[in-house]
Protein backbone atom coordinates (compact mmCIF):
# COMPACT_ATOMS: atom_id res chain seq x y z
CA UNK A 1 0.00 0.00 0.00
CA UNK A 2 3.04 2.26 -0.09
CA UNK A 3 3.25 3.02 -3.77
CA UNK A 4 -0.17 3.35 -5.33
CA UNK A 5 -1.34 4.87 -8.54
CA UNK A 6 -5.03 4.36 -7.88
CA UNK A 7 -7.12 6.10 -10.56
CA UNK A 8 -9.71 8.05 -8.57
CA UNK A 9 -11.66 8.95 -11.73
CA UNK A 10 -12.52 5.39 -12.63
CA UNK A 11 -15.37 3.55 -10.94
CA UNK A 12 -17.06 0.17 -11.02
CA UNK A 13 -20.50 -0.12 -12.70
CA UNK A 14 -22.57 -3.29 -12.39
CA UNK A 15 -25.69 -4.15 -14.39
CA UNK A 16 -26.81 -7.63 -13.35
CA UNK A 17 -29.60 -7.74 -15.96
CA UNK A 18 -26.83 -7.97 -18.52
CA UNK A 19 -25.28 -11.01 -16.81
CA UNK A 20 -25.53 -14.09 -19.06
CA UNK A 21 -24.03 -16.48 -16.49
CA UNK A 22 -20.99 -17.32 -18.63
CA UNK A 23 -18.67 -17.24 -15.59
CA UNK A 24 -15.80 -15.69 -17.54
CA UNK A 25 -15.47 -13.30 -14.59
CA UNK A 26 -15.05 -16.23 -12.20
CA UNK A 27 -12.13 -17.55 -14.20
CA UNK A 28 -10.61 -14.08 -14.50
CA UNK A 29 -11.11 -13.39 -10.78
CA UNK A 30 -8.95 -16.39 -9.90
CA UNK A 31 -6.09 -14.65 -11.73
CA UNK A 32 -6.16 -11.76 -9.27
CA UNK A 33 -3.00 -11.89 -7.18
CA UNK A 34 -4.63 -10.56 -4.03
CA UNK A 35 -6.88 -13.65 -3.68
CA UNK A 36 -4.15 -16.19 -4.18
CA UNK A 37 -5.88 -17.93 -7.12
CA UNK A 38 -9.24 -18.32 -5.36
CA UNK A 39 -12.20 -16.85 -7.24
CA UNK A 40 -14.12 -14.29 -5.20
CA UNK A 41 -16.82 -13.07 -7.60
CA UNK A 42 -20.27 -14.65 -7.32
CA UNK A 43 -22.37 -15.78 -10.28
CA UNK A 44 -25.56 -17.65 -9.46
CA UNK A 45 -29.02 -18.46 -10.77
CA UNK A 46 -31.58 -16.24 -9.13
CA UNK A 47 -34.40 -18.82 -8.98
CA UNK A 48 -33.54 -21.74 -11.23
CA UNK A 49 -36.98 -23.41 -10.99
CA UNK A 50 -38.77 -20.51 -12.65
CA UNK A 51 -36.23 -18.49 -14.61
CA UNK A 52 -32.84 -18.62 -16.32
CA UNK A 53 -31.94 -15.25 -14.79
CA UNK A 54 -28.42 -15.13 -13.39
CA UNK A 55 -26.80 -12.50 -11.26
CA UNK A 56 -23.26 -11.36 -10.68
CA UNK A 57 -21.97 -9.84 -7.46
CA UNK A 58 -18.69 -8.11 -6.68
CA UNK A 59 -17.95 -6.47 -3.34
CA UNK A 60 -19.83 -3.17 -3.28
CA UNK A 61 -17.21 -1.54 -0.97
CA UNK A 62 -19.72 0.08 1.39
CA UNK A 63 -18.98 3.50 2.89
CA UNK A 64 -19.66 2.09 6.36
CA UNK A 65 -18.98 -1.61 5.83
CA UNK A 66 -21.16 -3.90 7.94
CA UNK A 67 -18.57 -6.68 7.52
CA UNK A 68 -15.85 -4.63 9.22
CA UNK A 69 -18.22 -3.50 11.97
CA UNK A 70 -19.25 -7.04 12.93
CA UNK A 71 -15.72 -8.46 12.71
CA UNK A 72 -14.62 -9.50 16.21
CA UNK A 73 -10.95 -9.62 15.20
CA UNK A 74 -10.52 -6.19 13.54
CA UNK A 75 -9.45 -8.11 10.44
CA UNK A 76 -11.26 -6.03 7.79
CA UNK A 77 -10.00 -2.56 6.96
CA UNK A 78 -10.94 0.24 4.60
CA UNK A 79 -8.26 2.31 2.89
CA UNK A 80 -8.15 5.94 1.78
CA UNK A 81 -9.63 5.03 -1.62
CA UNK A 82 -12.70 3.43 0.00
CA UNK A 83 -11.59 -0.11 -0.83
CA UNK A 84 -12.70 -2.57 1.85
CA UNK A 85 -9.90 -5.08 2.04
CA UNK A 86 -10.16 -8.83 2.47
CA UNK A 87 -9.52 -10.28 5.93
CA UNK A 88 -6.07 -9.79 7.31
CA UNK A 89 -4.77 -13.39 7.39
CA UNK A 90 -3.08 -13.15 10.78
CA UNK A 91 -6.14 -11.70 12.47
CA UNK A 92 -9.15 -13.45 10.88
CA UNK A 93 -10.52 -16.16 13.17
CA UNK A 94 -12.91 -17.59 10.57
CA UNK A 95 -16.08 -16.84 12.56
CA UNK A 96 -18.16 -15.94 9.44
CA UNK A 97 -19.81 -12.90 11.06
CA UNK A 98 -18.99 -10.87 7.95
CA UNK A 99 -20.25 -13.61 5.61
CA UNK A 100 -23.65 -13.68 7.29
CA UNK A 101 -24.00 -9.95 8.01
CA UNK A 102 -23.05 -8.50 4.60
CA UNK A 103 -26.32 -7.26 3.05
CA UNK A 104 -25.03 -8.12 -0.44
CA UNK A 105 -23.88 -11.67 0.39
CA UNK A 106 -20.28 -11.02 -0.67
CA UNK A 107 -17.62 -12.41 1.73
CA UNK A 108 -16.72 -16.07 1.35
CA UNK A 109 -15.53 -18.37 4.10
CA UNK A 110 -12.82 -20.70 2.84
CA UNK A 111 -13.47 -23.56 5.24
CA UNK A 112 -10.19 -25.39 4.72
CA UNK A 113 -8.22 -22.16 5.34
CA UNK A 114 -10.47 -21.16 8.28
CA UNK A 115 -10.33 -17.73 6.69
CA UNK A 116 -12.72 -15.21 5.18
CA UNK A 117 -11.83 -13.96 1.72
CA UNK A 118 -13.50 -11.35 -0.42
CA UNK A 119 -13.17 -9.20 -3.51
CA UNK A 120 -10.70 -6.32 -3.09
CA UNK A 121 -11.58 -4.78 -6.46
CA UNK A 122 -8.34 -6.41 -7.72
CA UNK A 123 -6.24 -4.13 -5.55
CA UNK A 124 -3.02 -5.44 -7.12
CA UNK A 125 -4.31 -4.08 -10.45
CA UNK A 126 -6.41 -1.04 -9.50
CA UNK A 127 -3.65 0.28 -7.22
CA UNK A 128 -1.42 0.61 -10.28
CA UNK A 129 -4.10 2.11 -12.51
CA UNK A 130 -5.30 -1.08 -14.21
CA UNK A 131 -8.90 -2.36 -14.38
CA UNK A 132 -10.20 -5.28 -12.27
CA UNK A 133 -9.90 -8.70 -13.98
CA UNK A 134 -13.64 -9.43 -14.06
CA UNK A 135 -14.50 -6.13 -15.76
CA UNK A 136 -11.89 -6.67 -18.45
CA UNK A 137 -13.38 -10.03 -19.53
CA UNK A 138 -17.16 -9.53 -19.13
CA UNK A 139 -18.57 -10.03 -22.67
CA UNK A 140 -22.02 -8.55 -22.03
CA UNK A 141 -21.25 -5.33 -20.21
CA UNK A 142 -22.64 -6.52 -16.86
CA UNK A 143 -19.35 -5.47 -15.28
CA UNK A 144 -17.75 -2.23 -16.39
CA UNK A 145 -14.84 -0.29 -14.95
CA UNK A 146 -14.11 3.18 -16.26
CA UNK A 147 -15.02 6.84 -15.92
CA UNK A 148 -18.52 8.26 -15.32
CA UNK A 149 -18.34 9.98 -18.73
CA UNK A 150 -17.62 6.70 -20.48
CA UNK A 151 -20.58 4.88 -18.93
CA UNK A 152 -22.94 7.83 -19.56
CA UNK A 153 -22.01 7.75 -23.21
CA UNK A 154 -22.41 3.97 -23.45
CA UNK A 155 -25.71 3.80 -21.51
CA UNK A 156 -27.64 7.00 -22.24
CA UNK A 157 -30.88 5.54 -20.84
CA UNK A 158 -29.46 4.46 -17.48
CA UNK A 159 -28.30 6.17 -14.32
CA UNK A 160 -25.55 4.94 -12.05
CA UNK A 161 -26.83 4.52 -8.49
CA UNK A 162 -24.87 3.72 -5.34
CA UNK A 163 -27.56 3.82 -2.68
CA UNK A 164 -29.42 0.71 -1.54
CA UNK A 165 -32.51 0.62 0.67
CA UNK A 166 -33.03 -2.34 2.99
CA UNK A 167 -36.20 -1.36 4.88
CA UNK A 168 -35.03 1.46 7.14
CA UNK A 169 -31.35 0.94 6.40
CA UNK A 170 -29.66 2.92 3.63
CA UNK A 171 -26.36 1.45 2.45
CA UNK A 172 -24.13 3.69 0.33
CA UNK A 173 -21.41 2.03 -1.68
CA UNK A 174 -18.34 2.82 -3.77
CA UNK A 175 -19.51 0.47 -6.54
CA UNK A 176 -22.42 1.63 -8.72
CA UNK A 177 -25.34 -0.27 -10.14
CA UNK A 178 -26.95 0.73 -13.47
CA UNK A 179 -30.63 1.65 -13.03
CA UNK A 180 -33.39 3.16 -15.20
CA UNK A 181 -32.69 6.80 -16.06
CA UNK A 182 -33.49 9.16 -13.23
CA UNK A 183 -33.33 6.53 -10.44
CA UNK A 184 -31.87 7.63 -7.12
CA UNK A 185 -31.63 4.30 -5.34
CA UNK A 186 -32.43 0.61 -5.46
CA UNK A 187 -35.01 -0.57 -2.95
CA UNK A 188 -34.56 -4.23 -2.03
CA UNK A 189 -37.52 -4.28 0.38
Amino acid at each position, binding site marked *: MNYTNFNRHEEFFVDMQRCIGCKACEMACAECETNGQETMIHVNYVDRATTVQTTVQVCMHCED*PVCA*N*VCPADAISQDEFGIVHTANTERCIGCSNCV*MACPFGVPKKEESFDLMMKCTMC*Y*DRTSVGKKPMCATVCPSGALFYGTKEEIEEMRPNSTAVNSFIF*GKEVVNTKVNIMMPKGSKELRIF
Partner: protein
Amino acid sequence: MKKSRTFNRKALLIASGLSAIMVASVFYGSRKLQNFDAALITYLFGTVFAFFGIVYRYSVWLQRPPTWLYFKRSMQFLFKGKVFSHFWFLSKETVNNIALQRFIYPRSQYRWVAHFCIALGCMSAFAITFPLTFGWIHFTLAPGSISVYEAHFFGFKVFDFELGSLIAFLTFHALNWSSWLVIIGSVYYLRRRLTNPGLIATQTFEGDLLPLILLIAISVTGLFLTYSYQFMKGFAFDFMAVLHAVTVIMFLIWIPFGKFFHIIQRPAQIAAHIYKREGVQRGMAVCEHTGAEFTTQLHVDDLKELTRELGFDFDREDGTSHLDLSPEGKRSRLAQAHLKARQEGGNLFG
Protein backbone atom coordinates in the same frame (compact mmCIF):
# COMPACT_ATOMS: atom_id res chain seq x y z
CA MET B 1 -16.22 2.95 10.39
CA LYS B 2 -16.47 4.33 13.85
CA LYS B 3 -13.08 4.73 15.48
CA SER B 4 -13.07 3.63 19.08
CA ARG B 5 -11.49 5.99 21.60
CA THR B 6 -8.00 5.03 22.68
CA PHE B 7 -8.38 6.02 26.34
CA ASN B 8 -10.39 3.44 28.18
CA ARG B 9 -10.76 3.59 31.97
CA LYS B 10 -11.77 -0.06 32.39
CA ALA B 11 -8.77 -1.23 30.37
CA LEU B 12 -6.44 1.05 32.34
CA LEU B 13 -7.65 -0.42 35.65
CA ILE B 14 -7.38 -4.04 34.48
CA ALA B 15 -3.95 -3.50 32.92
CA SER B 16 -2.58 -1.64 35.96
CA GLY B 17 -3.94 -4.28 38.36
CA LEU B 18 -2.54 -7.23 36.43
CA SER B 19 0.81 -5.49 35.91
CA ALA B 20 1.08 -4.93 39.68
CA ILE B 21 0.38 -8.63 40.26
CA MET B 22 3.03 -9.48 37.69
CA VAL B 23 5.65 -7.29 39.39
CA ALA B 24 4.74 -8.91 42.73
CA SER B 25 5.15 -12.37 41.21
CA VAL B 26 8.60 -11.36 39.93
CA PHE B 27 9.52 -10.17 43.44
CA TYR B 28 8.31 -13.31 45.22
CA GLY B 29 9.09 -15.75 42.39
CA SER B 30 12.73 -14.69 42.51
CA ARG B 31 12.69 -15.24 46.28
CA LYS B 32 12.64 -11.50 47.07
CA LEU B 33 15.07 -10.75 44.22
CA GLN B 34 17.66 -13.17 45.62
CA ASN B 35 17.70 -15.07 42.30
CA PHE B 36 17.07 -12.01 40.16
CA ASP B 37 19.73 -11.41 37.52
CA ALA B 38 20.39 -7.66 37.57
CA ALA B 39 21.98 -7.83 34.10
CA LEU B 40 18.49 -8.49 32.73
CA ILE B 41 16.83 -5.44 34.30
CA THR B 42 16.26 -3.66 30.96
CA TYR B 43 14.53 -6.76 29.64
CA LEU B 44 12.34 -6.79 32.73
CA PHE B 45 11.23 -3.19 32.15
CA GLY B 46 10.49 -4.01 28.50
CA THR B 47 8.48 -7.06 29.52
CA VAL B 48 6.43 -5.19 32.14
CA PHE B 49 5.61 -2.46 29.63
CA ALA B 50 4.68 -5.05 27.00
CA PHE B 51 2.48 -6.89 29.51
CA PHE B 52 0.68 -3.68 30.46
CA GLY B 53 0.16 -2.81 26.78
CA ILE B 54 -1.06 -6.27 25.88
CA VAL B 55 -3.60 -6.38 28.72
CA TYR B 56 -4.74 -2.84 27.91
CA ARG B 57 -5.29 -3.52 24.24
CA TYR B 58 -6.90 -6.89 24.93
CA SER B 59 -9.32 -5.25 27.36
CA VAL B 60 -10.24 -2.55 24.84
CA TRP B 61 -10.61 -5.18 22.16
CA LEU B 62 -12.88 -7.37 24.31
CA GLN B 63 -15.23 -4.42 24.82
CA ARG B 64 -16.06 -4.24 21.10
CA PRO B 65 -19.58 -5.71 20.74
CA PRO B 66 -18.70 -8.54 18.28
CA THR B 67 -15.67 -9.59 20.32
CA TRP B 68 -17.60 -9.48 23.56
CA LEU B 69 -20.31 -11.64 21.95
CA TYR B 70 -17.83 -14.45 21.19
CA PHE B 71 -16.13 -14.11 24.55
CA LYS B 72 -19.42 -14.19 26.46
CA ARG B 73 -20.88 -17.06 24.43
CA SER B 74 -17.77 -19.25 24.59
CA MET B 75 -17.55 -18.78 28.38
CA GLN B 76 -21.27 -19.62 28.73
CA PHE B 77 -20.91 -22.79 26.67
CA LEU B 78 -17.67 -23.87 28.35
CA PHE B 79 -19.02 -23.71 31.87
CA LYS B 80 -22.65 -24.65 31.43
CA GLY B 81 -22.21 -28.41 31.81
CA LYS B 82 -20.68 -31.23 29.73
CA VAL B 83 -17.40 -30.00 31.19
CA PHE B 84 -15.34 -33.03 30.13
CA SER B 85 -16.60 -32.97 26.55
CA HIS B 86 -15.78 -29.27 26.34
CA PHE B 87 -12.40 -29.74 27.97
CA TRP B 88 -11.51 -32.47 25.48
CA PHE B 89 -12.63 -30.29 22.54
CA LEU B 90 -10.70 -27.32 23.92
CA SER B 91 -7.51 -29.38 24.31
CA LYS B 92 -7.79 -30.74 20.77
CA GLU B 93 -8.41 -27.27 19.37
CA THR B 94 -5.49 -25.80 21.32
CA VAL B 95 -3.09 -28.41 19.96
CA ASN B 96 -4.35 -28.06 16.37
CA ASN B 97 -4.79 -24.29 16.18
CA ILE B 98 -2.35 -22.81 18.65
CA ALA B 99 0.49 -25.33 18.92
CA LEU B 100 0.44 -26.70 15.36
CA GLN B 101 -1.36 -23.87 13.47
CA ARG B 102 -2.91 -26.56 11.26
CA PHE B 103 -5.22 -24.09 9.47
CA ILE B 104 -2.21 -22.64 7.62
CA TYR B 105 -1.31 -26.00 6.04
CA PRO B 106 -4.14 -25.97 3.42
CA ARG B 107 -3.16 -22.42 2.43
CA SER B 108 0.35 -23.63 1.56
CA GLN B 109 2.63 -26.33 2.93
CA TYR B 110 5.69 -24.08 2.73
CA ARG B 111 3.90 -21.29 4.54
CA TRP B 112 2.91 -23.71 7.27
CA VAL B 113 6.47 -25.01 7.71
CA ALA B 114 7.83 -21.46 7.82
CA HIS B 115 5.17 -20.25 10.24
CA PHE B 116 5.65 -23.29 12.44
CA CYS B 117 9.40 -22.59 12.57
CA ILE B 118 8.81 -18.98 13.64
CA ALA B 119 6.13 -19.93 16.15
CA LEU B 120 8.19 -22.74 17.68
CA GLY B 121 11.26 -20.50 17.80
CA CYS B 122 9.38 -17.62 19.43
CA MET B 123 7.42 -19.75 21.88
CA SER B 124 10.49 -21.65 23.03
CA ALA B 125 12.39 -18.38 23.39
CA PHE B 126 9.53 -16.90 25.45
CA ALA B 127 9.44 -20.02 27.63
CA ILE B 128 13.17 -19.66 28.34
CA THR B 129 13.71 -15.90 28.54
CA PHE B 130 10.66 -14.74 30.51
CA PRO B 131 11.28 -17.00 33.53
CA LEU B 132 15.01 -16.15 33.36
CA THR B 133 14.27 -12.41 33.28
CA PHE B 134 11.81 -12.73 36.17
CA GLY B 135 14.34 -14.67 38.23
CA TRP B 136 12.01 -17.68 38.26
CA ILE B 137 14.69 -19.92 36.77
CA HIS B 138 18.32 -19.85 37.76
CA PHE B 139 21.30 -22.17 37.59
CA THR B 140 23.84 -23.00 40.30
CA LEU B 141 26.68 -25.45 40.76
CA ALA B 142 25.60 -28.42 42.87
CA PRO B 143 26.93 -28.12 46.44
CA GLY B 144 30.31 -29.82 46.78
CA SER B 145 30.79 -30.30 43.04
CA ILE B 146 32.50 -28.42 40.25
CA SER B 147 30.97 -30.31 37.31
CA VAL B 148 27.26 -30.71 38.13
CA TYR B 149 24.87 -27.90 37.33
CA GLU B 150 21.46 -27.51 38.97
CA ALA B 151 18.42 -25.78 37.48
CA HIS B 152 16.01 -24.13 39.94
CA PHE B 153 12.44 -23.05 39.25
CA PHE B 154 10.88 -20.57 41.73
CA GLY B 155 13.81 -21.44 43.94
CA PHE B 156 13.09 -25.19 43.88
CA LYS B 157 15.59 -27.58 42.31
CA VAL B 158 14.10 -29.14 39.17
CA PHE B 159 16.94 -31.09 37.56
CA ASP B 160 20.72 -31.30 37.32
CA PHE B 161 23.20 -32.25 34.62
CA GLU B 162 26.95 -32.78 34.06
CA LEU B 163 28.80 -29.90 32.48
CA GLY B 164 30.04 -30.92 29.03
CA SER B 165 27.21 -33.46 28.59
CA LEU B 166 24.78 -33.48 25.68
CA ILE B 167 22.02 -32.12 27.92
CA ALA B 168 24.29 -29.25 28.95
CA PHE B 169 25.05 -28.48 25.30
CA LEU B 170 21.37 -28.50 24.33
CA THR B 171 20.31 -26.47 27.38
CA PHE B 172 22.98 -23.78 27.19
CA HIS B 173 22.34 -23.32 23.47
CA ALA B 174 18.54 -23.53 23.62
CA LEU B 175 18.11 -19.93 22.49
CA ASN B 176 20.41 -20.56 19.53
CA TRP B 177 18.11 -23.35 18.30
CA SER B 178 15.18 -20.94 18.65
CA SER B 179 17.08 -18.30 16.69
CA TRP B 180 17.81 -20.61 13.78
CA LEU B 181 14.15 -21.63 13.57
CA VAL B 182 13.03 -17.98 13.57
CA ILE B 183 15.61 -17.07 10.90
CA ILE B 184 14.56 -19.91 8.59
CA GLY B 185 10.85 -19.00 8.84
CA SER B 186 11.34 -15.24 8.64
CA VAL B 187 13.62 -15.40 5.61
CA TYR B 188 11.01 -17.51 3.79
CA TYR B 189 8.26 -15.00 4.59
CA LEU B 190 10.46 -12.02 3.74
CA ARG B 191 11.22 -13.55 0.34
CA ARG B 192 7.50 -14.21 -0.19
CA ARG B 193 6.56 -10.65 0.75
CA LEU B 194 9.20 -9.22 -1.60
CA THR B 195 8.14 -11.32 -4.60
CA ASN B 196 4.37 -12.02 -4.35
CA PRO B 197 2.51 -9.34 -6.36
CA GLY B 198 -0.69 -9.66 -4.30
CA LEU B 199 1.22 -9.08 -1.07
CA ILE B 200 3.30 -6.27 -2.53
CA ALA B 201 0.06 -4.48 -3.45
CA THR B 202 -1.49 -4.69 0.01
CA GLN B 203 1.37 -4.83 2.54
CA THR B 204 2.90 -1.95 4.46
CA PHE B 205 6.51 -1.63 5.58
CA GLU B 206 5.76 -1.12 9.27
CA GLY B 207 2.89 -3.61 9.35
CA ASP B 208 4.36 -6.54 7.45
CA LEU B 209 8.05 -6.20 6.59
CA LEU B 210 9.41 -4.58 9.73
CA PRO B 211 8.17 -7.42 12.02
CA LEU B 212 10.12 -9.93 9.92
CA ILE B 213 13.23 -7.75 9.81
CA LEU B 214 12.99 -7.30 13.58
CA LEU B 215 12.70 -11.06 14.17
CA ILE B 216 15.75 -11.66 12.01
CA ALA B 217 17.67 -8.85 13.76
CA ILE B 218 16.90 -10.32 17.20
CA SER B 219 17.98 -13.80 16.12
CA VAL B 220 21.14 -12.74 14.31
CA THR B 221 22.38 -10.48 17.13
CA GLY B 222 21.53 -13.23 19.64
CA LEU B 223 23.43 -15.88 17.69
CA PHE B 224 26.35 -13.50 17.26
CA LEU B 225 26.79 -13.38 21.04
CA THR B 226 27.42 -17.13 21.24
CA TYR B 227 29.60 -17.25 18.12
CA SER B 228 31.52 -14.18 19.27
CA TYR B 229 32.76 -15.77 22.48
CA GLN B 230 33.09 -19.28 21.02
CA PHE B 231 34.84 -18.62 17.74
CA MET B 232 35.85 -14.95 17.58
CA LYS B 233 37.54 -14.40 20.95
CA GLY B 234 34.72 -12.12 22.10
CA PHE B 235 34.85 -9.80 19.06
CA ALA B 236 32.26 -6.97 19.31
CA PHE B 237 30.51 -8.80 22.16
CA ASP B 238 29.54 -5.72 24.17
CA PHE B 239 28.24 -3.85 21.17
CA MET B 240 26.17 -6.85 20.05
CA ALA B 241 24.85 -7.42 23.57
CA VAL B 242 23.49 -3.86 23.59
CA LEU B 243 22.14 -4.15 20.04
CA HIS B 244 20.45 -7.43 20.95
CA ALA B 245 18.81 -5.84 23.98
CA VAL B 246 17.61 -2.91 21.86
CA THR B 247 16.02 -5.17 19.24
CA VAL B 248 14.39 -7.42 21.84
CA ILE B 249 12.98 -4.47 23.80
CA MET B 250 11.65 -2.93 20.57
CA PHE B 251 9.95 -6.25 19.86
CA LEU B 252 8.47 -6.44 23.37
CA ILE B 253 7.05 -2.94 23.52
CA TRP B 254 5.68 -3.28 19.99
CA ILE B 255 3.68 -6.48 20.70
CA PRO B 256 0.54 -4.60 21.77
CA PHE B 257 0.53 -2.28 18.75
CA GLY B 258 1.52 -4.26 15.69
CA LYS B 259 1.46 -7.56 13.91
CA PHE B 260 2.69 -9.58 16.89
CA PHE B 261 -0.59 -8.96 18.70
CA HIS B 262 -2.02 -11.83 16.63
CA ILE B 263 -0.18 -14.19 18.98
CA ILE B 264 -2.47 -12.94 21.75
CA GLN B 265 -5.59 -12.77 19.58
CA ARG B 266 -5.38 -16.24 18.05
CA PRO B 267 -7.13 -18.18 20.87
CA ALA B 268 -10.31 -16.32 19.84
CA GLN B 269 -10.41 -18.73 16.91
CA ILE B 270 -11.15 -21.51 19.40
CA ALA B 271 -14.03 -19.44 20.78
CA ALA B 272 -15.44 -19.21 17.23
CA HIS B 273 -15.17 -23.00 16.88
CA ILE B 274 -16.90 -23.65 20.22
CA TYR B 275 -19.64 -21.22 19.14
CA LYS B 276 -20.14 -23.03 15.85
CA ARG B 277 -20.10 -26.49 17.44
CA GLU B 278 -22.67 -25.52 20.06
CA GLY B 279 -24.79 -23.76 17.42
CA VAL B 280 -24.90 -26.83 15.17
CA GLN B 281 -26.24 -28.89 18.08
CA ARG B 282 -28.99 -26.33 18.63
CA GLY B 283 -30.11 -26.27 15.00
CA MET B 284 -29.39 -24.75 11.62
CA ALA B 285 -30.98 -21.75 9.94
CA VAL B 286 -32.72 -22.40 6.60
CA CYS B 287 -32.61 -19.70 3.92
CA GLU B 288 -36.10 -18.61 2.89
CA HIS B 289 -34.90 -18.07 -0.67
CA THR B 290 -32.78 -21.12 -1.44
CA GLY B 291 -34.40 -23.46 1.09
CA ALA B 292 -30.98 -24.69 2.16
CA GLU B 293 -29.24 -24.62 5.55
CA PHE B 294 -26.52 -21.96 5.62
CA THR B 295 -25.41 -21.29 9.19
CA THR B 296 -26.57 -21.91 12.73
CA GLN B 297 -29.79 -20.27 13.94
CA LEU B 298 -27.84 -19.09 16.99
CA HIS B 299 -25.49 -17.18 14.66
CA VAL B 300 -28.34 -15.52 12.75
CA ASP B 301 -30.14 -14.52 15.96
CA ASP B 302 -26.97 -13.14 17.54
CA LEU B 303 -26.06 -11.22 14.37
CA LYS B 304 -29.47 -9.58 14.25
CA GLU B 305 -28.92 -8.29 17.77
CA LEU B 306 -25.30 -7.37 17.09
CA THR B 307 -26.04 -5.36 13.93
CA ARG B 308 -28.83 -3.55 15.78
CA GLU B 309 -26.40 -2.71 18.60
CA LEU B 310 -23.92 -1.38 16.02
CA GLY B 311 -26.58 0.88 14.51
CA PHE B 312 -27.71 -1.14 11.48
CA ASP B 313 -31.36 -2.02 10.91
CA PHE B 314 -32.07 -4.82 8.45
CA ASP B 315 -35.50 -5.68 9.90
CA ARG B 316 -38.45 -6.12 7.59
CA GLU B 317 -41.94 -4.92 8.38
CA ASP B 318 -43.25 -8.46 8.98
CA GLY B 319 -40.75 -8.97 11.82
CA THR B 320 -38.29 -11.05 9.77
CA SER B 321 -34.90 -9.72 8.75
CA HIS B 322 -32.71 -9.45 5.68
CA LEU B 323 -30.23 -11.48 7.72
CA ASP B 324 -32.60 -14.49 7.56
CA LEU B 325 -31.34 -14.93 4.00
CA SER B 326 -28.23 -16.89 3.06
CA PRO B 327 -25.53 -14.99 1.13
CA GLU B 328 -26.86 -16.55 -2.11
CA GLY B 329 -30.41 -15.61 -1.13
CA LYS B 330 -29.37 -12.01 -0.53
CA ARG B 331 -27.68 -11.78 -3.93
CA SER B 332 -30.76 -13.23 -5.60
CA ARG B 333 -33.13 -10.83 -3.82
CA LEU B 334 -30.97 -7.93 -4.93
CA ALA B 335 -31.10 -9.17 -8.54
CA GLN B 336 -34.88 -9.60 -8.34
CA ALA B 337 -35.27 -6.07 -6.98
CA HIS B 338 -33.06 -4.82 -9.79
CA LEU B 339 -35.08 -6.73 -12.41
CA LYS B 340 -38.30 -5.28 -10.99
CA ALA B 341 -36.87 -1.75 -11.15
CA ARG B 342 -35.76 -2.34 -14.75
CA GLN B 343 -39.19 -3.72 -15.72
CA GLU B 344 -40.90 -0.73 -14.13
CA GLY B 345 -38.51 1.49 -16.04
CA GLY B 346 -39.86 -0.09 -19.24
CA ASN B 347 -36.56 -1.43 -20.51
CA LEU B 348 -34.48 -4.37 -19.35
CA PHE B 349 -31.24 -2.75 -20.44
CA GLY B 350 -30.44 0.82 -21.37
